[in-house]
């Protein structure tokens, strides 16, 4: 049992969730310290959302041990939830109410007084850049605005941990960056963030530490940089050929770089020096339709660990 005020906010051991015969989360271990920004990266169906629902104390744990603030969700659900902010995958805003009414109503669920809720709402509307929309109905707002409102709403109780399930899924690039900016501010202020994503760039931007999930299991963990160092090379050479089948080109370039990955639409050559690998390909007289050298990303880590890309 951990001390409720310790810096270990969240701890899971052998955490399992099954639905009938289907195992969504298969005995995973992780821990999150105060002030950390922790991510679950994985494709759709990897068990990220099921994990988040258990952590959010809305879905009962099937097996293993889960503790938040040293407390058991099975016995202290409401007490734990009072200290969490939740941004669900799908917005659950009251669309027929106004922006500020959404904040007021939600604050009251935490037992906050009307006056307290109103003053916090004013502050949060400013944070979410929605002051001039305070009295508009939610329904016609853009996806990015709704998402910012959902985040503002989750902060009304001044949570110690903010849980974000796919925070920017379905948003355009501009809205994503605006949202990341808000999350950065929270992180700088010491809010502990726990998020899921299937965007590697989001994981790289926001997470100090992350676990890669696949089929309900954790397949790797570490900082984005350490995962890349451990499971990939510094650079990647991407080759595309004017062909339907890239597999036989793989044989032609065998031996170049440390490792070759054949995808349906391109070949990936993992190498410390991508330009040198490109030169080696050229020396063999192979003429790809296009060739591109880039840095390794978490996508490469994921591909290496699971043999699949993140977004199928």
């Amino acid at each position: 049992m951990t001390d409720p005020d310790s810096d270990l906010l969240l701890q899971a051991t052998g955490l399992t969730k099954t639905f009938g015969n289907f195992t969504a989360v298969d005995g995973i271990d992780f821990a999150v310290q105060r002030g950390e920004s922790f991510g679950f990266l994985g494709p759709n169906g990897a068990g990220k959302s099921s994990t988040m629902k258990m952590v959010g104390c809305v879905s009962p744990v099937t097996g293993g041990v889960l503790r938040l603030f040293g407390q058991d969700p099975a016995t202290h659900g409401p007490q734990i939830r009072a200290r969490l902010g939740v941004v669900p995958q799908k917005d659950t805003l009251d669309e027929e109410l106004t922006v500020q009414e959404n904040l007021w109503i939600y604050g009251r669920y935490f037992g906050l007084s009307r006056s307290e809720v109103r003053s916090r709402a004013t502050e949060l509307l400013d944070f979410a850049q929605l002051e001039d929309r305070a009295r508009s109905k939610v329904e016609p707002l853009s996806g990015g605005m709704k998402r910012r409102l959902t985040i503002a709403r989750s902060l009304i109780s001044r949570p110690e941990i903010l849980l974000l399930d796919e925070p920017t899924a379905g948003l355009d690039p501009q809205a994503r960056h605006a949202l990341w900016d808000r999350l950065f501010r929270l992180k700088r202020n010491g809010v502990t963030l726990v998020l899921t994503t299937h965007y590697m760039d989001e994981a790289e931007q926001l997470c100090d530490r992350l676990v890669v999930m696949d089929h309900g299991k954790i397949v790797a963990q570490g900082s984005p940089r350490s995962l890349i160092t451990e499971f990939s090379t510094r650079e990647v050479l991407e080759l595309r050929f004017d062909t339907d089948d890239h597999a036989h080109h793989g044989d032609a370039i065998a031996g170049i770089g440390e490792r070759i990955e054949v995808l349906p639409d391109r070949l990936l050559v993992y190498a410390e020096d991508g330009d040198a690998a490109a030169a080696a390909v050229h020396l063999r007289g192979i003429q790809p339709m296009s060739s591109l050298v880039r840095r390794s990303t978490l996508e490469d880590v994921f591909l290496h660990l699971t043999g699949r890309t993140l977004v199928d």
Partner: protein
Amino acid sequence: MSASVSTPNPQPTPTSTPQPTPGPALWRPVFGCWVTVYKRTWLGSVFGRFLSPLLFVLSMGLGLGSLVDKSAGGVGGVPYLHFVVPGILAAQAMWVAMGESTYQVLGAIRWNMKYQAMLATPIGIDDILLGHLTYVAMQVTGATAIFVGVAALFGSFGSWWVLLALPITVLTGMAFAVPIFAFTATQEGDGGFNILFRFIITPLFLFSGTFFPIDQLPAFLRPIAWVTPLWHGVDANRSLALGSPDLVGVLGHTAYLLFVIAIGGLLARHTFTKRLVV
């Protein structure tokens, strides 16, 4: 992105006031949520609340009533208006309860996920049920008070005892609302509501002694009227509104309505938990 935008500091410092601990009264903000939503649409709904007693009193009480009184001398010596309106009073509570316990509840589960939003906070299933059902009780009470007021203008009630029919009517409505809440939480779509409406609510409306005494029913059908809540509300209301109430009978009806509400509450807690806590 201006740099002057302030950032709230959601991290409580040790000196800040402690987080409020979830209290036993968290059903109140749930009730408050539904009231806020209602404030957007109250005008249309209140208009309907006034219209419904007007239509019933004019068509059944006065229209059909004049025919019944002329040809049969009322029902058991009582003018048909005085006979039928207390029954319709109980039945309208059933209709209001049905209206408030179906689409809005399914919507909060499936479409707008209001309940899920609540459950991410310290609010629990019991708070959701108590808060939402209190709101439904408020609706039934409002509709019933308007109905009594409008019907009284037409001289529909024989006695001031009708004021006691008001709480009994609300209980009648809730004896439908609570089990329907339990039922709605088992539904995937609104198909089940049509079955409920056609095969349960409408037959009850017609055969629970609302329009004619259940003695007129074939003997084998009467027990059905006895077990369903509507007949108890109709009989208690009629006994009170006619002015010489059988108080023991009224108490018995009240106890039965409370019993149905209690059983419905247990069922609703079960189906809501099964649906929302997975």
